[in-house]
């Protein structure tokens, strides 16, 4: 089973190789494959942007030590994508900015694992782990600006997804900004809709850092 590792500023020294691999994968996908405007090719073949900071949390899907999928979460109280770049997508409801709301960006599955159903399984396991992580960290919601094709998928997971504004075209794609409720039902919903096992894929190693600053919690996992 895919393990989804939580990597924060507190334990990144245990994941330097995996984080580097993940930045290389992002370069391959977002710059070389998808040609996202606003991202320029880099000589070191690693993709970073202004939202890769000490506050950023990475969920990395690892298989035999190799990164096969992942995503990124950043606090919405500071600088983040919807706030800084895509606020026009939140013109009706406003940009959510709360310590218990994270913004989700950069979901990926490596190209060589997108075959058959493994690709969607890796993607859905990473997404389910994001809800799992949100529950552990006491988050109430996750905001995301995404292609509109995700919306019917999320509703099929029986997620409560509230739009922040009307969809619009960016870079020839229809995008929409939404706020997803983090609830135990949301976790159960994606697991059953995607045929995932009803147990956590999250792995935490080393020192922990809570997503919500100052929040005290005891992670329900052994510290290696």
């Amino acid at each position, binding site marked *: 089973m895919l393990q989804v590792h939580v990597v924060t500023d507190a334990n990144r020294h245990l994941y330097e190789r995996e984080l580097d691999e993940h930045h290389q994968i992002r370069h391959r996908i977002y710059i070389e494959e998808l040609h996202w405007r606003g991202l320029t090719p880099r000589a070191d073949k690693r993709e970073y942007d202004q939202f890769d900071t000490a506050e950023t949390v990475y969920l990395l899907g690892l298989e035999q030590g190799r990164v096969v999928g992942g995503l990124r979460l950043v606090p919405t109280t500071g600088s983040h994508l919807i706030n800084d770049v895509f606020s026009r997508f939140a*013109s*009706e*409801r406003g940009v959510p900015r709360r310590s218990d709301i994270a913004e989700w960006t950069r979901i990926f599955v490596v190209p060589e694992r*997108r*075959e*058959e*159903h493994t*690709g*969607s399984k890796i993607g859905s396991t990473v997404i389910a782990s994001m809800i799992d992580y949100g529950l552990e960290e006491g988050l109430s919601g996750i905001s995301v600006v995404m292609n*509109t*094709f995700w*919306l*019917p*998928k999320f*509703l*099929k997971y*029986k997620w*409560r997804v*509230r*739009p922040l*504004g*009307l*969809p*619009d*075209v960016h870079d020839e794609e*229809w995008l*929409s900004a939404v706020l997803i409720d983090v609830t135990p039902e949301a976790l159960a919903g994606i697991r059953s809709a995607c045929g995932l096992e009803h147990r956590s894929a999250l792995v935490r190693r080393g020192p922990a850092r809570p997503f919500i600053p100052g929040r005290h919690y005891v992670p329900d996992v052994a510290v290696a």
Partner: protein
Amino acid sequence: MTVPGNDMIEDMSGVSRAAFDFIDEIERMSDQRSLMVRLDSELKRYGFHAWLITGLPNPGGRIDPLMMLNGWPRGWSDLYTRQNLVQNDPVVAHCFRSTAPFEWTDAPYDAVTNPRAKEVMDRASDFRMNRGFCVPIHTSDGFQAVVTMAGERVELSGHAKRALHLMALYAYGKAVDLCAPKPFPPARLLTRREREVLQWAATGKSSWEISQILGVAECTVTAHIKAASAKFDTPNRVATVVAALRRGEISF
């Protein structure tokens, strides 16, 4: 909202507010009837009197088993299913090509080379369905669906289209939730190995390259593609890959 059902929505903030109210209201609904009534009155405000939320069949298939919520005029619905018009409907064909919402006028066909498409559109106008707007939906298992709406005289601003887009996505989500039995994607035809070979073929790999990747003989790869082609009744390799993608046997 207290606006009567036939009031056109004029201003932009009114359009957005109405769309958000609609989404909030249907979230709480627990029966198909309420959703249909609410959607019907919402769409009338944009000039649409006919609408349908449906899955779309693969070529040769019928649409009626895939229909979820049917707000079409009875006569048109009967005619469409009885004569199996879905086969020649240029709007349906465009749904398979487009991931973005579109107006019917943006689903072009050549009336000379494709008189059957013209016939479908002419019959639709007999039911005052002259102008329409479609929101195609592609689900992860390769199932293709659409929310389509039509009226006699419809003029949509860009803002109205954005509102309709969002409402249609939510109405579809709710329809899936409320409609049982739910439509299922067509049963699998291919073997695991045939899907694997076609998945690689879809990335542009030659039979020889696929044989190297999978560690089998090149003629084995060719045989798998031929077998899949026979099952889909497709003339060549490209058509076989397209058919497999469309049926959801392989993925993008």
